[in-house]
């Protein structure tokens, strides 16, 4: 069990937003597979198809994607909200908007659907118009977090982008604005891959966000910086695929560890596998999870 903002989670693992979370049944399945907290695909203010394919490409040591924030729109999901009302697992509802007003509009409605947590995606690097603005600017981050916090009745998680010049400052701004936790990181980059035979970018949107193993060093650095800047809990996310990766995230300062791309590399079973690997590592080292959170910031163990 893991305590997170007062809720008891079966495991300290979190399903990243935009991975599988498109309906209640699959979220239930991921939870049953050992994921303590499941996050919905980010919900936006109006129906949106997102970009044409190719949208998600595996690069081997990670993935690049430009899905383009497709969404039915918060008010076109009645059946979904109904199904989720009867859920037996903790739910994190991710939302986004193109303006503070849109964020507030979506947040208010979604909060009323009774998720256990709400995550504001103020960091999507894939879409030209949505989100980016907020995550790289302290004032914008403060403004949207503050406005959303005022209209919701569930704990608020701010999801940050590694594109921020100083992610610690952004995290602090969110904390000051009332965020109850930080989730880091969203995709890195953006990057581009060009097919030399087609002589054009592979992604229809040309640029895409990077995820998976190749961004783990960036994610660990971000969590490390955020841990020094805030006192609220952190969901460490980015490139984690093994129990040892999770240990690294905890040592950087994460309270919970998220996974997304890992599902590509080890399947949905990755949650149970990582739980087992994590438990084995902790047992063999006679550590508790709490004991290693932020350990990399501590100097006592130096010879």
């Amino acid at each position: 069990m893991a305590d997170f903002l007062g809720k008891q989670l079966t495991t300290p693992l979190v399903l990243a937003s935009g991975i599988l979370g498109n309906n209640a049944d699959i979220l239930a399945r991921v939870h049953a597979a050992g994921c303590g907290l499941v996050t919905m695909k980010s919900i936006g203010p109006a129906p949106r198809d997102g970009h044409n394919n190719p949208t998600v490409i595996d690069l081997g040591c990670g993935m690049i994607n430009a899905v383009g924030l497709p969404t039915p729109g918060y008010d076109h999901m009645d059946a979904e909200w109904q199904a989720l009302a009867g859920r037996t697992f903790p739910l994190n509802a991710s939302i986004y908007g193109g303006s503070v007003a849109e964020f507030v509009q979506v947040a208010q409605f979604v909060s009323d659907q009774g998720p256990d947590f709400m995550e504001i995606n103020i960091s999507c690097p894939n879409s030209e118009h949505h989100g980016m603005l907020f995550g790289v600017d302290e004032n914008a981050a403060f403004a949207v977090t503050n406005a959303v916090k005022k209209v919701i009745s569930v704990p608020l998680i701010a999801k940050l982008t590694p594109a921020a010049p100083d992610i610690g400052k952004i995290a602090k701004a969110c904390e000051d604005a009332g965020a109850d936790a930080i989730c880091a990181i969203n995709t890195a980059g953006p990057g581009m891959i060009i097919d030399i035979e087609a002589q054009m970018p592979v992604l229809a949107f040309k640029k895409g966000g990077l995820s998976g193993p190749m961004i783990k060093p960036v994610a660990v650095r971000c969590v490390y910086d955020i841990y020094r800047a805030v006192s609220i809990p952190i969901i460490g996310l980015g490139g984690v695929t093994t129990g040892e990766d999770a240990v690294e995230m905890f040592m950087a300062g994460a309270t919970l560890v998220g996974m997304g791309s890992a599902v590509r590399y080890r399947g949905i079973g990755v949650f149970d596998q990582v739980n087992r690997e994590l438990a084995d590592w902790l047992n063999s080292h006679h550590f508790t999870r709490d004991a290693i959170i932020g350990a990399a910031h501590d100097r006592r163990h130096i010879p």
Partner: protein
Amino acid sequence: MIAQHTPVMIKVAEKTVHNAAYTTLFFDFAVDYHPGQFIMVWIPGVDEKPYSLSFHSPTRFGITIEAKGIFSRRAVGLSTGDLVGIRGPFGNGFDIISSPHTAVVAGGCGMAPLAPLVARLHPELFFIQGARTREFILFPDRFDVTRHITTDDGSLGYKGLVTDLLAAEIRRRNQEKIPGFDRVYACGPEMMMHAVFTLCETHGIDCRVSLERYMRCGFGVCGACVCSDRVVCKDGPVFASEQLRKMPDFNRTALLKSGRAVPVTEYASWRCQ
């Protein structure tokens, strides 16, 4: 080979136009494949969509496309020598049993993924193929097995539904005490596949159907293709009766490109009928 990462660009080696609607594109490229699996086909500057392999040999494969929308029309318009990018093969195909007592039910271009399967089943299989009209019977003379054909307009074979013939054959085998079907394989409009599934359920026959949903990644990450708690691109596209029983969204709900859940009829209004 297996192209799980960035698209592999290959040239259209040959093109066969079957009729106004169906065209097959051939590629001289070796893919490690099992009947029922699909590949993502990228036409640079247009889009990328999933297609089942309808032909497969160690050095060549083919996909059969029904022209309907933006992408498929561009696809059937390709000429030999044109480059397309492929990723895959992805998904789980049909499990092949050696029993002589199997039935294959194909509707429209649902014949495409079933063709390589038929070639590997016991020749005594009971083969039902349905289409709108006689022109739409795909691969009419591809293998020499007796076909039981149905058309909506009766322009060829029986006028009616493939399930009528399947039901009749099941009944006959019961009455004449001939061993019943050990397995029924079906691909076509989801409504048709569901009818086949339901029929099989009432007679305790294990069946396999190949589902279709809008896809993006093709490898089980983005969630675009979920059907109940299954990921069609990775857990499927072929599902077994045991699994289908636990999938209320089968023949009921599918997600549009936006992720919006709609009735399958609305979503699938556009393929293989």
